[in-house]
């Protein structure tokens, strides 16, 4: 297999408080695993002056206080942590199961996705819920996970005209990615189902049920289960 990881990370300057550390220039699970490991190590042994480490598809965005540290020092400390990566214990990623009611009003684009790929709606459900997805990055709206690992037989382009409002919990497909809308927002992804569980609860001490680098599985549920679970969430 071709190794897509950069031999040495590429440092990019993002203003006077930001440093991007790139580990590759394609979307790839190995690169993203490296990002995850480095994000965990940076959290465990945070270099002095580092305020926040944000994992992305293929890089880390490091926010630092320039009154405490500087570029040369940061680069050195990051490279040193990378050298020691094999010695530091890194917990395997969590897998989070998300119940989804596919099709009908919950997934108005499921037929389109099926037709586009010359399969049936039931195939879409079977294939989509049969795989495990890697959270490459979280962003766009609070808790929106960009998921890699979508089977090629489900790849579908975005809607030509985005929707003004995509309901909270909607599960969608955009090209080779799948994702979930934790809050209602405008959006152009093809919607195939919806989850009744809340993915973002700002009032809780931990407002999210997953983090970047974790894995997600989708479990098909019936409309009755959807209604029941949605009722429990309401309480």
């Amino acid at each position: 297999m071709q190794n897509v990881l950069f031999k040495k990370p590429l440092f990019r300057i993002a203003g006077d408080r930001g440093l991007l550390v790139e580990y590759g220039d394609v979307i790839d699970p190995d690169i993203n695993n490296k990002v995850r490991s480095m994000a965990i190590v940076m959290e465990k042994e945070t270099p002095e002056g580092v305020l926040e480490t944000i994992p992305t598809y293929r890089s880390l965005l490091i926010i630092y206080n320039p009154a405490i540290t500087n570029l040369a020092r940061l680069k050195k400390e990051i490279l040193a942590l990378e050298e020691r990566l094999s010695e530091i214990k890194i917990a395997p990623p969590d897998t989070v199961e998300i119940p989804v009611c596919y099709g009908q009003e919950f997934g108005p684009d499921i037929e389109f996705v099926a037709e586009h790929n010359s399969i049936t709606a039931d195939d879409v459900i079977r294939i989509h819920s049969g795989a495990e997805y890697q959270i490459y990055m979280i962003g766009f709206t609070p808790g929106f996970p960009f998921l890699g690992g979508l089977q090629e037989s489900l790849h579908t382009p975005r809607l030509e005209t985005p929707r003004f409002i995509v309901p909270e919990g909607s599960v969608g497909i955009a090209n080779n990615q799948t994702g979930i809308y934790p809050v209602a927002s405008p959006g152009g992804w093809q919607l195939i189902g919806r989850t009744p569980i809340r993915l973002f609860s700002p009032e809780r001490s931990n407002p999210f049920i997953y983090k970047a680098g974790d894995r997600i599985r989708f479990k098909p549920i019936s409309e009755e289960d959807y209604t029941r679970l949605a009722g429990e969430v309401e309480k």
Partner: protein
Amino acid sequence: MDVFSVLTPGAYTTVQDEGRFGYQQMGIPVSGVLDSFAFRVANMLVENPVNCAVLEITVMGPRLEVLSEADISITGAEMGITLNDQPVQGWRSIKVKPGDILGINQVKSGCRAYLAVTGGIDVSEVMGSRSTYVGGKIGGYYGRSLKQGDIIKRGKGLKLKPARHLSPAVIPKYSSNIVIHAVPGPQDDFFDEGLKTMFESEFMVSAKADRMGYRLQGPVIKHREEVPKSIISEPSVPGGIQVPADGQPIILLVEQTVGGYTKIATVISTDICKVAQATPGDLIRFEQITLETAHTLYRDRQKFMQELEEKHIIRIS
């Protein structure tokens, strides 16, 4: 304690503090005040702790009925302030009492004003901050900008004995010709001629200018021929200057999370307050500086802010 009843909300008035830090990896932008200088001074003038929430007022201010006694201060953009229809000054503390009508009018210079009140604006903290993130409908006053009829509360705090004002020597003057310092990167290697265009031209602030970003108009900033115009989506920092395929730059601000366009340069953090006070039609020139110079300016500003209260806040006896 109830302190204001909103008679008219103004064009866009939100509750903000320094921002919501540590959640960008979950897709939550920092939000918070755009002009941190005016914000810090507003709180100093009423002797508040540094991170008390304030009202950020944009272009046209609100009309507020005062419900309880307090000290207030209004800093930032010059907006023509009236108390019971009598003009009052910005950048100083003002005593208000129940029944007073505070008017903050159309902007004369700058873009954003900050209203601080004894004890700070009291709303619940959400994920460690009182800042409003309107896009995510969280924080601030029910996650939105103010509306007519809203009742604003304040926290506990001691009222001032002598009034205070900021030394006129350090009150910023907001010009329509703005010079902003920027450091090349993160994707400066996607440009060659484009960097010259970026740092040697003048750009006009377009009507699309808000807390997410400022779209500018000017000569087209060209990418290098052989490079892709978009990149794998990545988080942005406030001040990142994004250049989409059309070559018209956008200064990304505090309600932005991820984006897939190249960023040619990044506005230094101490100059974000200049962007905050720019209005549509203003002209911006970017001056290129090195990261080392940016860090020196950062530390100088920090020192200046630490000494500000002692050196430039004047007590009026």
